[in-house]
């Protein structure tokens, strides 16, 4: 047993030194391979996180949001506007919402200030999102001040920090008391940002929207199901991209594997011959070469995956910018919450490491079974 372990150690040592000896070639291989894993893993992590974010957002969204438009642009809801809607069949609840963006010049970031529907934030208090808390070093019962639109500095006490359930929904969110909100932004009394309508019966939603459009021609109702559809089409499109990426990647991979499969270098073959002649078994040679392939593919997998993780969750997947632009209509910026799905990782692993190992095994096996006396005649 001990000598078995020792033997594996020798094999690994030898493998590492062979990898270093053919540094250029192996580095090239590693780069291509890591890149492949990177692209696939990015697409995978990104789509998975996106779906999750969408689910989290839509879960809490009202069925209909009504915006008022002035010359095609989103404008405030004036007083009395909500009363015009009055009683409408199928609508459980109508509620004016107050929210807005704020640019914090201290950390050069945009926040979303919002008044919670349940009025749960006391005057002078704030509840902040996790990203913001991190940026400004805030925790419960600490103080923070922001420069209000009037120009004066206003201080608040942090009542709580939101849990990191969804970055899109809450990362840069600040929950504030209604009076504070109006005072802070100089928000005209009786005005609202938009109107949220709760409709219990999904079949009524279209009717409600139609009635709203007729009743208030200067408004635009946004339906949750429409948002769902937007997301869905976004995903479909992205899945199309992913499929294209996938087939390109698989093609590249096939070429790579073929390159490997179509032959070991003359040097490698000679080396295998020497090893066999001096007493290495076919199995030892294959094992050594498998360690080699395994080390390359595992390293590539790890590098590619970690790079993809950083790309998607730290930098917001800049390579997927076109898709992100679609999102920016709804949200000005967002960082995805890191989510890793074990099954997905396993799938990716299976589709990258496994075929590579299979592809390298064939030529190795062919070289390793050559007669050991061949070396005598070179």
């Amino acid at each position, binding site marked *: 047993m001990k000598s078995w372990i020792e033997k594996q150690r020798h094999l690994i040592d030898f493998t590492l030194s062979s990898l270093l000896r053919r540094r250029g070639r192996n580095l090239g291989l590693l780069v291509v391979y890591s890149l492949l894993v990177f692209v696939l893993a990015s697409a995978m992590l990104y789509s998975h996180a996106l779906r999750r974010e969408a689910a989290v957002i839509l879960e809490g969204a009202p069925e209909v949001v009504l915006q008022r438009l002035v010359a095609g642009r989103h404008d405030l809801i004036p007083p009395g506007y909500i009363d015009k809607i009055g009683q409408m069949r199928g609508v459980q609840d109508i509620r004016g919402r107050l929210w807005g963006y704020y640019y914090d010049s201290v950390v050069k970031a945009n926040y979303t200030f919002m008044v919670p529907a349940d009025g749960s934030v006391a005057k002078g208090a704030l509840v902040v999102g996790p990203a913001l808390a991190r940026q400004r070093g805030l925790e419960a019962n600490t103080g923070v001040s922001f420069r209000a639109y009037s120009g004066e500095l206003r201080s608040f006490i942090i009542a709580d920090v939101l849990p990191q359930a969804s970055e899109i929904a809450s990362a840069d969110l600040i929950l504030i008391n209604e009076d504070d909100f109006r005072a802070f932004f100089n928000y005209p009394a009786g005005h609202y940002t938009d109107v949220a309508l709760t409709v219990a019966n999904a079949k009524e939603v279209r009717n409600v929207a139609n009635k709203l459009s007729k009743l208030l021609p200067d408004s635009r109702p946004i339906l949750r199901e429409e948002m769902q559809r937007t997301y869905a089409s976004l995903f479909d499109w992205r899945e199309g991209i992913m499929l294209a990426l996938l087939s390109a990647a698989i093609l590249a991979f096939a070429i790579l594997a073929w390159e490997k499969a179509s032959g070991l270098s003359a040097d490698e073959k000679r080396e295998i011959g020497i090893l066999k002649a001096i*007493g*290495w*078994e076919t199995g030892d040679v294959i094992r050594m070469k498998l360690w080699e392939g395994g080390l390359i593919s595992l390293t590539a997998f790890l590098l590619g995956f970690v790079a993809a993780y950083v790309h998607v969750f730290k930098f917001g997947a800049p390579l997927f910018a076109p898709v992100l632009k679609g999102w920016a209509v709804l949200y000005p910026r967002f960082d995805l919450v890191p989510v890793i799905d074990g099954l997905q990782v396993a799938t990716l692993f299976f589709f990258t490491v496994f075929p590579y190992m299979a592809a390298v095994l064939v030529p190795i096996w062919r070289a390793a079974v050559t007669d*050991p006396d061949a070396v005598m005649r070179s």
Partner: protein
Amino acid sequence: MIELRDVKKAFNQGQHNEVWALSGISLGIEAKRVTALRGPSGSGKTTLLTLIGCLARPTSGRVTLHGRDISGLPERFLTEIRRKTFGFVFQQFNLVKGLSAIENVMLPAYPTGRPHRELAQRAEALLERLRLAHRRDARAEWLSGGEQQRVAIARALINDPEVLVADEPTANLDTALAKEFMAILESFGAEGRTVILTSHDPLVTESAVVGRLVDMRDGLLVEHHE
């Protein structure tokens, strides 16, 4: 210790390019002696050496080692016997490029699973003995022909084999280096190691170190000089 009985070896048997490299050889090789195979090119010396050294199996006939028939053993067992019993010095030396001298020496011992430190010590001692200690970290391709051969000899000895097998050991060496090789060979003879080599270099075959000379021609033994 090694007996060959009516050993024949064909290459590409049954094909149009069939060659009979050995056409019936019976030969006993005694332990603790230096045996040299001599003969013109193509006479089958190398082929015979591969059969003796368990690198290949005869087409027909028997090869026994210490009375045990090894001609029909599967490759796995042959490899193990080869590793334990034989050390090889090839004509082209066949060092692995890119590896240092000492790594090359240690290579045949890796599958044995002996601890690394023990191996390194033994390799070091062998290089010392062959006056190569100062070149231990030099890469194989930086070594001169003579140095390469001595590394190859050290490599052949790392598993402490009973038998040293050398194919044309002086073919790539000048006279001075060939003489040096004979001196090393002499020390093996004095140690009582079994050596089997092929050569058509008179410097080797006429040497007093060679205890027994076997002449070959056209895949057959010519006659015995004792």
